[in-house]
């Protein structure tokens, strides 16, 4: 049962254009969402996050949008740069019964074409 889904395994975008990566979740108890970026042979690195009380968070070229009613979030990168080429993971977290749960999606491989 995949509670966090990234339905697009890969995405190609021209340099300078917008990249939109999508993520859907099923558990309404998730109340914090994070995006991580992963380069080959390295561990994921944190990119941006959003609390469930917000619908948008922006940090430079990166913006995350949250639609709670649809249980959907998206990461927008604009303008896209070749260095953005990586695998992007969406993660959801919650505190349930005094412990913390962290669920990651399967990732979307972004390729930014120069």
């Amino acid at each position, binding site marked *: 049962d995949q509670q966090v889904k*990234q339905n697009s395994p890969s995405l190609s975008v021209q340099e300078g254009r917008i990249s939109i990566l999508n993520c859907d979740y099923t558990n309404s108890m998730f109340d914090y969402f994070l995006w991580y970026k992963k380069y080959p042979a390295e561990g994921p690195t944190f990119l941006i*996050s959003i609390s469930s009380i917000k619908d948008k968070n922006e940090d430079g070229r990166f913006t995350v949008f949250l639609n709670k009613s649809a249980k959907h979030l998206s990461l927008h990168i604009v303008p896209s740069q070749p260095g953005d080429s990586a695998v992007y993971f969406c993660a959801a977290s919650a*505190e349930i019964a005094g412990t913390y749960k962290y669920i990651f999606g399967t990732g979307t491989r972004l390729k930014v074409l120069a």
Partner: protein
Amino acid sequence: GAGVSQSPSNKVTEKGKDVELRCDPISGHTALYWYRQRLGQGLEFLIYFQGNSAPDKSGLPSDRFSAERTGESVSTLTIQRTQQEDSAVYLCASSPIVGQKNEQYFGPGTRLTVT
């Protein structure tokens, strides 16, 4: 400063053998997390430590898996009687404190191959 380090970076073992994977978190980070990533799949959360206490071990795949942490430093993930299905990259992460809002700092992972 130094990031999260993991050793070994690669481990090839025969089915049935035990393996021990090590994680050194960022100094001062009280929270430590273990994940597994099988080929073509996402990160599967295994266990987290707050200090040397692990409040929830339900994410460990089977009783062949165990994890320990010494104080607020090194952690080891032990897999007994390894199976081919255990082949994966095992990732460790740490954060200053535990909590769902805290970004986690990941190590480079240990690639485990069970033959």
